[in-house]
């Protein structure tokens, strides 16, 4: 059982569970953009990022879901 500690209270060996998500880099384009700027740089302008956040909020209000991959093509349509 290696070095895992024994639980006398429960009478069993301790074990670890590693929970992996599909991606922790961001579920939406705006989350991905903000994380990407910490690593490599930007893919859109600050103005487009604000517009994409706006579109994501609108989509969440309308469809109840916030993971949306909004492209700057859509953001440019926001006036």
């Amino acid at each position, binding site marked *: 059982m290696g070095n895992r500690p024994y*639980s006398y*209270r*429960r*009478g*069993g*060996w*301790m*074990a*670890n*569970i*590693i*929970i*992996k*998500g*599909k*991606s*922790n*880099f*961001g*579920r939406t384009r705006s989350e*991905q953009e903000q994380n*990407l700027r910490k*690593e*490599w*740089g*930007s*893919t*859109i*302008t600050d103005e*487009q990022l604000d517009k994409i956040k706006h579109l994501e909020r609108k989509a969440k209000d309308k469809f109840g*879901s*916030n*993971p*949306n*991959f909004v*492209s*700057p*093509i859509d953001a*440019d349509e926001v006036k």
Partner: protein
Amino acid sequence: MPLIKGPKVKGYIEVDENVRFMRNVATRYALPWSQIFFVDGVNGSDTKNTGRTPDRAFATIAKAVSVAARGDVIYVRPLLATYTHGFDRYTEQVTVPLAKHDLSIIGVTNSLNPEFGPKLAWTTPAGVCLTVDAPALHVENLGFFAEGVTTGAAVLLTHDATAYLKRGGDAATFYNCTVKAGLIKTQGGDGLYIRNCIFNAMWDGTYAGGIYAVSDSGHNPRRLKIRDCTFQGGNIVPSAAAYITVTSFGAVLIADCIFDACDVDAIIADDSTGVISCCHFIGADDDAVITKGGLLVTGCTYLQT
């Protein structure tokens, strides 16, 4: 990395305390895409890395496309820049197969300097940089360089009519890309959208940068949309070939674009329908710069040097 610790009893982990999942656990809503991949031609590795995080990026775009599935997103980092010849270029021939539809390939560029254009450069002396058999590809911030390529195409969107094995011309989108001395060529399809892109001819004007939409497949191609694009000649010389060639397309929209001087008509259309709207040309009038071929022209301006 989150961990849950507890005694293992009869095959189960027992947890005495309340458990609060902060993230990455059974999300309520499915992601519209499956995974994110990263490509870094300087620090990445195709053999050692998973491509799932920026610090474990792949080295090539081809590797990322090969492991990606439909709906995935690929972020690509520019190569190094040198004073003498600008940014180094990815030199791959990549094919996006039919099953990998709705794929996004996005260059990471400095958007604070949009005038310079996308820094992520991609070229291949052997032929087409990107061949697309899958529908709904999204390309962003990439710079394609195709000087001297005999096929003339930097990007080839394939289409095979009713065989339905090649659908690259369907619903593809190109945003903020640069194409120099090469073409985005589509063989047909429905809904190709090219926006905010810059097309440059070769330095001596011999190879145009532009869009070539021809119905090779004869399958009623339609809804080609080109907006907010700039078409430029070579180094102080006009382009020797047309910037946009459209044949047998329906519902074409070319709007809000700027066309530099051209030795032939800037737009050559044939047997097509649609509108050219609010564009700016160098020439005397629409007859001097457009072979209409069935397209209507409205709201354009013409400047003569």
